[in-house]
């Protein structure tokens, strides 16, 4: 059971991006270590390297004192190292028992499955969470009928069923309720007493303080701080995560004029949908409101609810009129546009031409039969406006670089002249030059009076572009930052769900 793991000076490069420049982590039997860091600090990369999902470029990984190189997650699992990830590894159509024992099913004589033993051992595992899960969670229940929290519990039990010596809980508590978190932490204490090593990656500061023995802080891919929790406090941890970064002022590019006298474009009262648990906000014409916080805290669902792509409760008003969009086309009629985050799957028809992609939302403008020449002229104009670097309008969108493809995604909506623009992490994976052009474009749109709701997972971007940032945590508003209060320290603290 005893294990000691030591990751030293780990480097990991994805293409040209340095995700981890000096990652370090020490953990041994009977210890709970919290791995902390802001968005993009390299937490996930480091935990993936430890479990063999990703191979490091440089650095040492010592397990029980021996240097090890994992080329496949199976090798890490064979040494008793496993992880519970947020991206679920469950098969929806299979039962709880089948999912937990997938690939190491109990069998009769090494051939036929042993459903009785599978059931009994699953029940034993489920008993660990007794009282915190509904009666419907049984070995024979199909995973697709479970709540997100219960699915996460099945995921935890699946990891546990391999009898690990070291378990990594990567944001494992994100979809659990308080009672379930309580149960999990009781278990973590029991595992600790049994000599298991536990690494917790969590964005909830209170949880880290509650359960961890030691905290290791990553900042910009470097381990900058490692200390027993008994010898440190919340403020020190947050300031270590934030560092001394000075935010450069880009806001001068746009109008820094207070837009309070402008008309209210969007008003939301207590809107809830899927992961969103009640948000109220007001957005005026010409205002750029940022949505911040860690990833998956309800930002995307907020945008989808406004765009009519996700059923919601609560009141949404546009220009003072209550609306209830049931389909994106309803929202489009009210001059709302949505730029999705995942270009490849949501924003573009990759195999079609640039022209087709530009015109897709706007064909109606060009009548019947379609006035092709006029459409082409308008598209050409937009492409020029956005300075899309392309061979010709008829080239397939897949021939464009990431930044240029993103311009097409935005451009196709700009042709409709939206009054309310919803942006879902639009600069993810876009190079720095294209980002700069994109920021300039946002400022132009604002000057023209477009109201923009802008979710970004890049904190710097929010700090430098927005007048106001709404920080979401667990589907609720954790803070509204503006003016003096709009600082990196406040943003990170609010993301972690503290008042810091």
């Amino acid at each position: 059971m005893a294990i000691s793991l030591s990751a030293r000076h780990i480097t990991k490069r994805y293409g040209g991006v340095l995700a981890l420049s000096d990652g370090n982590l020490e953990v041994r039997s009977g210890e709970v270590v919290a791995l902390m860091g802001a968005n993009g600090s390299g937490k996930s990369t480091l935990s993936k390297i430890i479990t063999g999902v990703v191979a490091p470029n440089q650095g040492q990984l010592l397990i029980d004192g021996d240097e090890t190189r994992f080329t496949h997650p199976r090798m890490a699992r064979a040494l008793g190292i496993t992880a519970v990830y947020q991206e679920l590894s469950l098969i929806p159509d299979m039962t709880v028992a089948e999912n937990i024992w997938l690939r190491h099913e109990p069998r009769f004589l090494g051939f036929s499955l042993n459903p009785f033993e599978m059931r009994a051992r699953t029940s034993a595992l489920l008993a660990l969470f007794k009282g915190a899960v509904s009666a419907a969670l049984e070995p024979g229940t199909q995973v697709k009928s479970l709540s997100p929290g219960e699915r996460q519990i099945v995921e935890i039990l699946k990891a546990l069923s391999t009898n690990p010596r070291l378990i990594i809980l990567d944001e494992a508590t994100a979809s659990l309720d308080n009672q379930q978190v309580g149960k999990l932490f009781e278990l973590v204490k029991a595992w600790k007493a049994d000599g298991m090593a536990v690494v917790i990656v969590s964005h909830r500061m209170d949880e880290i303080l509650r359960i961890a023995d030691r905290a290791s802080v990553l900042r910009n891919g470097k381990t900058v701080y490692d200390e027993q929790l008994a010898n440190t406090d919340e403020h020190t941890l947050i300031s270590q995560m934030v560092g001394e970064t000075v935010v450069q002022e880009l806001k001068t590019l746009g109008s820094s004029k207070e837009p309070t006298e402008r008309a209210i474009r969007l008003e939301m009262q207590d809107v809830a949908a899927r992961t969103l648990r009640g948000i109220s906000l007001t957005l005026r014409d010409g205002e750029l409101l940022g949505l911040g916080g860690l990833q998956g805290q309800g930002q995307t669902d907020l945008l989808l609810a406004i765009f009519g792509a996700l059923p919601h409760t609560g009141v949404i008003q546009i220009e003072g009129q209550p609306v209830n969009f049931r389909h994106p086309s309803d929202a489009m009629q009210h001059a709302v546009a949505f730029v999705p985050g995942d270009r490849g799957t949501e924003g573009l028809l990759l195999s079609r031409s640039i022209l087709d992609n530009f015109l897709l939302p706007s064909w109606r403008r060009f009548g019947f039969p379609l006035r092709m020449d006029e459409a082409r002229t308008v598209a050409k104009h937009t492409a020029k406006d956005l300075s899309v670097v392309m061979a010709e309008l008829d080239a397939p969108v897949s021939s464009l670089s990431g930044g240029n493809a993103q311009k097409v995604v935005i451009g196709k909506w700009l042709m409709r002249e939206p009054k309310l623009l919803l942006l879902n992490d639009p600069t993810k994976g876009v190079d720095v030059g294209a980002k700069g052009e994109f920021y300039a474009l946002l400022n132009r749109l604002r000057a023209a009076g477009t109201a923009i709701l802008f979710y970004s997972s890049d904190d710097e971007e929010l700090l430098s572009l927005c007048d106001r940032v709404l920080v979401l945590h667990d589907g609720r508003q954790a803070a509204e930052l503006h003016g003096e209060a709009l600082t990196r320290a406040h943003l990170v603290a609010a993301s972690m769900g503290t008042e810091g």
Partner: protein
Amino acid sequence: MTGLVLRRIISRHSYLFALLLLVVAVLVNLRLQDNLLEVNVISRNFRNFLPLIVLVVGQSVVIIGGGIDLSAGAIVTLGNAILATLITSESSSGQILLAILLTCGAGVLAGVVNGLCVAYLRLQPIVTTYATSFIFTGVALLILPRPGGDMAAAVRSLYRSTPGGAPFTLWMVFTLIAIWLVVRSTRYGQFLFATGGKSESAYFTGIPVNFVKFSTYLWSGLFAALAALALTVNTGTGSPRSGDLLTLNSVVAVVLGGTRLSGGQGGVIGSILGVVILGLIANIISFASVDSWAQTLVSALIIIFALIGPGLVRLARKAVAR
């Protein structure tokens, strides 16, 4: 609580709607043909159903694994051509056995071609298997350019026999179901459902997703060869068009049996029920003296109705809930 248990049974045993449909089909058929349940009529019906029943075993496995095999019928044609050419009334039992083994080998080889293209070259299953179906039909035409054949009488009489009071063909159906139940309860069965259900998750759990996909086409090829055997023995002849209608019928039977086309759910038992339902619908139409011009139309309408059935049930339940 009982509602929950009921829902669980329905979702686990996806063929329940097919069972209901079967009962209706049997009752209607019985009114038109009162000797339907006599042994010799059952025997005759199942002699005609068996080729498609064998074929849907393989098709179900492919579809559960997240693919589809549109070359299944063409592999039957190929097998039919080989068998009709090699087996004659003068063949010794050794020669017959060799011919059967050769046919199975050809079926497996065809499956390997499909499997390699889909699982390892990542080609679209629909297009790939549609394209390979022309290869297999082409080879069949090469072997047997025009219909013909002279099936050994011993094999034909075995196919028509009723050992232990039940038709031989029915014993074969039970054997197929038994094989399926065994496969279902092995680790391979779990891998199959996991791969078809959500292949990324299966991959991260360490399941050899590509190999599982590959293997489903191999099974489909093998069962198509066995279906060819049943078909050839039943008709006694070979024809380069023998498998034409079987491909789409096999897909329809699988869907009628409650297996989802997107994979990860369903089973062989439902698909076999699907074949029997299709057969009974054909029976009903021929006994109901439907005008010949309308037969195809009526049977298609019945099949469409059967296919939207489960959806209608869901809609009705929603309406009640509201």
